[in-house]
């Protein structure tokens, strides 16, 4: 009796599961046939480690969709967005994108946020010869060299090295020239790349590395690290870190009195409004990479309107209230896709890709042209210095002069205060 029961059950269970998935798939197909908008699909980190950036990015992409539809859509057809939460987990990406492509029948895909979540999308896109817009990936295409991949982060043709070039150029220009440097980074994907690039630059600019270490991202106390760096007394400290460790390093440096002549470089998180308002004056003097700052040199057409809309929606959405870091770039990524669809008058993946490859686009983050490996033809990683920050009021970050652009030359909005200690007064 018992035997019979157990041997029939698994069959049912499996049949049930298979039937369930088939029904689900079938339902998706039916929906896809019902209307004819242009569909753009993406997975985005709405939960998990990267969601603090993923949510604002999705919000920006939605703003673009509304902007486009207000103007009558693309090729006379409305645009529809389909997005899923990738949970900041690369293992969900293959499932999400096959669902988007095969069940939802999207016309174009855009990547999720970050290198880790772009990587699993690459082979899917290549197998199907898709055009993909990548949102902030570092060197994703180095191994694949897939021609129809484009990436909106302005890291430039040699992402690893270009990342910190500005920081090193600024350092090398000071008089007397600083000599020694300490490199410190988290044991994670982006910091490893950034540190690898920085090591090359150390050689190129003729500095001497006196400290080169990494730490696990879940470190709680950064004062021992700051103290160890202080003990070797470097002229420059280059940090490649994620938000919690960026905050930890900045505070620890203040506490142990780590005062190199230049401090910063590749800290992710200092760009976030909540972090800026909490650290306040502790930020003064730090030279760090950035993508956008409310400086006169960065006021590209359309960006004011974008921020007006974004900041309105951000209040309700509980995301970064200013949104200066990622949102305009997420917007530009889809903006370029839209311009290319209009420009090539086509929904054909190859034609759109060809158009993107051979044209320059005027976006809310300025003029964008793509080069080798789908990266920006010319790097535009900014180096900014935090200057004259008083207290922790959020309003001060809306006006120019607090995050002064030092590099590159054509966007420069002020001069570096050197050494670091001078800017802290």
């Amino acid at each position: 009796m018992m035997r019979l029961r157990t041997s029939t059950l698994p069959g049912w269970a499996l049949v049930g599961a298979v039937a369930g998935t088939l029904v689900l798939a079938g339902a998706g197909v039916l929906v896809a046939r019902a209307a004819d908008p242009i569909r753009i699909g993406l997975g985005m980190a709405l939960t998990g480690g990267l969601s603090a950036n993923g949510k604002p990015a999705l919000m920006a992409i939605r703003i673009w969709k509304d902007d486009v539809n207000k103007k009558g859509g693309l090729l006379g057809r409305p645009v529809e967005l389909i997005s899923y939460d990738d949970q900041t987990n690369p293992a969900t990406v293959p499932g999400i994108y096959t669902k988007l492509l095969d069940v939802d029948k999207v016309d174009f895909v855009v990547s999720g946020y970050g290198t880790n979540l772009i990587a699993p999308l690459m082979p899917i896109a290549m197998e199907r010869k898709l055009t993909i817009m990548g949102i902030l990936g570092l060197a994703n295409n180095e191994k694949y060299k897939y021609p129809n991949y484009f990436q909106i982060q302005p890291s430039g043709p040699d992402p690893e090295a270009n990342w910190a070039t500005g920081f090193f150029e600024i350092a090398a220009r000071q008089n007397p020239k600083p000599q020694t440097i300490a490199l410190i980074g988290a044991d994670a994907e982006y910091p490893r790349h950034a540190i690898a690039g920085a090591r090359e630059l150390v050689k190129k600019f003729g500095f001497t590395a006196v400290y080169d270490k990494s730490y696990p991202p879940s470190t709680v106390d950064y004062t021992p690290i700051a103290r160890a760096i202080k003990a070797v007394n470097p002229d420059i400290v280059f940090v490649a870190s994620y938000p919690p460790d960026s905050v930890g390093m900045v505070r620890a440096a203040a506490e142990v009195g780590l005062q190199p002549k230049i401090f910063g470089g590749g800290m992710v998180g200092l760009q976030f409004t909540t972090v800026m308002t909490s650290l306040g004056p502790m930020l003064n003097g730090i030279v760090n990479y950035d993508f956008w700052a409310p400086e006169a040199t960065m006021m590209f057409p359309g960006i004011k309107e974008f921020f007006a809309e974004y900041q309105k929606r951000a209040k309700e959405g509980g995301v970064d209230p200013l949104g200066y870091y990622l949102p305009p770039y997420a917007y530009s990524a889809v903006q370029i896709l839209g311009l290319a669809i209009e420009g090539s008058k086509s929904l054909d993946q190859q034609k759109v890709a060809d158009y993107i490859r051979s044209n320059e686009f005027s976006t809310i983050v300025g003029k964008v042209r793509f080069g080798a490996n789908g990266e920006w033809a010319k790097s535009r990683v900014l180096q900014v210095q935090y200057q004259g920050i008083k207290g922790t009021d959020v309003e001060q970050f809306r006006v120019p002069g607090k995050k002064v652009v030092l590099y590159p030359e054509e966007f420069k909005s002020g001069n570096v205060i050197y050494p670091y200690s001078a800017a802290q007064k």
Partner: protein
Amino acid sequence: MKTRGALAVGVAVIGLGLALAGLGVNPYVYFAGYVVLQYVVIATAWNVLGGYAGYVNFGTPAFFALGAYTSIFLIEALRAPLPVLILSGGLVAALLGLGIGYLTLRLKGVFFSIATFALSVVLQTLIINWEYVGGAKGYTLIRPPVPFFRSWGVLLFTLMVALAVVTVLVARTIERSWIGRGLAALRDDEDAAECMGVPTLRLKLFATTLSGFFLGVAGAPFPYYVTYVEPSSAFDLNYAVNALAMPMIGGTTTWLGPVIGAVLLGTAQQVATVTISSELNLLIVGVVLVLFVVLAPEGLTGLVRKLRRR
């Protein structure tokens, strides 16, 4: 008779899988199906130790990732083919399983669970600092053109169907043999079992090794599935949670429990990922876990048994 019947069901399932693979249904089914089946393997493998022997392994991610990273190492070093990867991934993880088997000599209950968790952290740190397999940067695998099948999705799905069937058959065989009875005795009262002449250490070593083997097997094809492996996603806490929760939902005392649990919870998670797709996804998992352990403490199989008895 029993075993032959089970084998027949197993072959039928593989056949069904192959038919599904050949049918040309929507490719999404393969990708979602792969994940669900991967959890069938993980849950079943975990249950050999956790359900049968009562030792709660909290280091599932360590075994899974070890399988995945063994594959990466062999791909990088020897361009080894997939079958070799699966076997080696399993064997390396089995070695680790043997190691934790000796831990059971001294550690029981929650102590054992915490030790396996600690093992996972140590192993993750090793991988993070091992540049050859990508280190913290992660490893990008460029898949060669797919052999024999229409696409990698179909191949991996079929492979997972087969692996799941084999794992379940092995678990079922063990459960019904003297080994299974010995493990059950050990679970109920280890000292008493030892006194009765049950070779507890040998049984425990067998269970940890076998469980480790199949957890490694589940992880071995993972690099081909995601094509990009980095430590924090290979050592994801979700594997530990699911490995525990799925058998618990299905019922831990029979081989069927983890299968049902994995199919249900795995499918629910897949569906939720592409339907609800927000924080609510995790909320539902949380609520389901709480409700299940509170309302159906013996799992679904236990619930069904209870209902039938009435």
